[in-house]
């Protein structure tokens, strides 16, 4: 009888936990799939980390871009390169605290060596960094820099 309750408890606990956690792990291949199968044309993908102060500072600009152009085929995706072990302790609390509306993932790759080059050969690995993909034009532009809102809006419009 007791075991039944424990199982039931664990089951509900797992469900409620996965529902509240809107942040999933994502590999680079899954990211490419997400872009390929997505309905939008332009994907603004920002690489950040909870420990990276300039990243944290510019995240509201990405949120604002997504809201401002919500009627356009634009998708803003925030990919945290925090360690996977920090998903529950740092990333999810950060997303909740800042009430982030964009899609947020934590990168799910074993080696930084591999995924940095997969995102862009030009990326040295410093944060923040942003990739803008236009599916219609077939373009991928990579920016290893911080953005003010105006700068971000400008590159979005350039890549549109």
């Amino acid at each position, binding site marked *: 009888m007791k075991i039944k309750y424990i199982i039931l408890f664990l089951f509900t606990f797992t469900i409620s936990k996965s529902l509240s956690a809107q942040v999933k792990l994502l590999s680079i291949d899954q990211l490419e799939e997400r872009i390929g199968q997505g309905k939008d044309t332009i994907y603004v993908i920002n690489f950040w*980390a909870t*420990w*990276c*102060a*300039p990243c944290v500072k510019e995240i509201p600009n990405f949120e604002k871009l997504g809201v401002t152009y919500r009627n356009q085929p634009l998708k803003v995706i925030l990919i945290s*390169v925090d*360690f996977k*072990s920090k998903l529950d302790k740092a990333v999810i609390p950060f997303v909740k605290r800042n009430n982030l509306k964009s899609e947020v993932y934590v990168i799910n790759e*074993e*080696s*930084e*060596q591999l995924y*940095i*080059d997969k995102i862009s050969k030009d*990326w*040295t*690995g*410093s*944060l*923040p960094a942003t990739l803008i993909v236009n599916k219609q034009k077939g373009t991928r532009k990579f920016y*290893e*820099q*911080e953005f*003010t809102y105006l700068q971000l809006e400008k590159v979005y419009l350039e890549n549109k």
Partner: protein
Amino acid sequence: MKIIGIKIKILTILLVGFTSLAKAQSGYQIGEIVTDFSLNNVDGKMVSLANYPNAKGFFVVFTCNHCPYAKLYEQRIMDLDKKYAAKGYPVIAINPNDPKAYSEDSFDNMIKRSEEKKYTFPYLFDETQNVAKVYGAKATPHVYLLQKTKKGLEVAYIGAIDNDTEDVNPDGKIRYAENAVDAITNNKTPKITQTKAIGCSIKWKNEK
């Protein structure tokens, strides 16, 4: 004839100008000979690579106080010096960050940090940021392994210390920097001469 000569001269000047500009942006490549620098150390003395006549090479490490990734690697930078200074490859740590961006990276705080942690290597302040620019450093921590050759100090390895930033994967850990120096001390070319790693971007002056 004279005009053509002048034109060619101007063209050459322009070309040389552009190439050096491109070089300044991309930094040192593997196999390139580096120029020495003279930077202020936390003990108040100026330090150059020429101050180490007996060194066989150097680990020039761009790092800083504030960056969480630099903090994660601090002990490993100290260990590198402990292990390899005696073998002729001391660590030379350089903080290239603008302290206006992070006061934690100020010269005073560098002194504090190096005393607290008892650094066995110089911790230099690249106040003009010129050394970081010439090297092409973009992030902290960022390692350049230099090897003394007849031509001068040659870049043998650029990149990360290892592939295990969080230090949680002893089985899968690849110690890139150590492997590279072990190879060159055995007169071999390092198998991996360049790696990439996530890090904090260097805080350049006049950037907000």
